[in-house]
């Protein structure tokens, strides 16, 4: 089992909020901690609701879906891998899939799950790196020129068709990709 509270000293505040949310999900996973869940709920549920409304859902449908998404967070806490995603990223993927299901009435084929064996718990340093990189990416999105940022947001709100989605986001994705690649290699090694 990995522990984050007290075990990791951050050199800067970059990613510390992200690391906090990881610790909350771990408490939900290991202790079914309702107080930790309530804090996750207060932060993420209103964002998920806003995300779904911007994607075209009515306020009542968005409210219902946001509750469903948060219930999924509770039930699937054991599947969250903090060396490959921030909590915000993980919640986004659950909300996106809920949107496809609710608004488009389609199945969404997902890649084969790699899963974590008991011997393949994520490495703390990798978790720290990934969470910091996620915080930097959020900052980079905030700093994009207005026009470019709106285009990226519209793509994720489902406002652009796939042929309108541009090849270039203007976001620095190279580092975060390399970090995830390393985590995958470690996982493959542990599986073989």
């Amino acid at each position, binding site marked *: 089992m990995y522990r984050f509270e007290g075990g990791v000293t951050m050199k800067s505040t970059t990613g510390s909020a992200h690391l906090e949310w990881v610790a909350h999900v771990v408490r939900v996973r290991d202790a079914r901690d309702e107080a930790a869940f309530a804090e996750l709920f207060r932060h993420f549920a209103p964002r998920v*609701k806003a995300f779904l409304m911007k994607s075209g859902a009515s306020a009542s449908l968005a409210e219902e879906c*946001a509750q469903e998404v948060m219930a999924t967070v509770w039930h699937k806490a054991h599947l969250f891998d903090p060396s490959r995603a921030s909590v915000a990223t993980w919640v986004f993927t659950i909300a*996106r899939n809920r949107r496809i299901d609710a608004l488009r009435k389609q199945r969404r*084929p997902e890649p084969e799950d790699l899963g974590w064996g008991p011997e393949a718990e994520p490495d703390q340093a990798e978790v720290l790196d990934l969470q910091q990189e996620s915080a930097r990416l959020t900052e980079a999105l905030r700093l994009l020129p207005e026009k470019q940022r709106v285009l990226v947001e519209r*793509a*994720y709100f489902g406002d652009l068709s796939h042929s309108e989605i541009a090849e270039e986001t203007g976001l620095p994705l190279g580092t975060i990709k390399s970090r995830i690649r390393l985590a995958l290699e470690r996982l493959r090694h542990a599986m073989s």
Partner: protein
Amino acid sequence: MSIKHHLTDALLMAYSAGELPEAFNLVVATHVSLCDECRARLASFDAVGGAVLEECEDASMTPDALAATMERIRMGSGAPIHTDAATRRHLSALFPAPLRDYVGGDIDAVKWRPVGGGVRQAILPTSKDASVRLLHIPAGAAVPDHGHRGLELTQVLKGAFRDEHDRFGAGDIEVATEADVHTPVAEPGEDCICLAATDAPLKFTGLLPRLAQPFFRI
């Protein structure tokens, strides 16, 4: 598996944003299951989605939303439903989990139909905005020459094919647009099995395949 031909950034981002037709989603999910490079790139586009979510202004939840969600949890709502895609592939299986899910099994469960020239296909059920099928091309045989409107994705699962431009082996994905008129030929020695999706019906340039097109639902 050494993979040389990968998904484009635009396709990975569209898949991450949830904007691809179901048929393309299946091909992307199949490729990502086989290719850790594209899995890592996809995860970085999911991270962009996470950043967009993080930056969303709050829409206030109803006052009893948390209590209602705890009640949902107690009722088992949002609990994981076991699907085949969640399980890891047996080592002897050819199809990754998402494809196995659509076929209802591995290669031996495919209901093939002949389409001429020894080529067989099986159309998989998806939403109508695009179509996806499995192709079985005998070693050395050609897939009929075709152009296509829109986009075509071809994922090689077994064997290999060549066209005028390149070679595509097991694990590789070919991303072709309407500008590409090509003649893929399966390499000699081994039959080639591919998963191919298009967002428009293929238009064959030969007379006979064109007449056959409505009949075979290509």
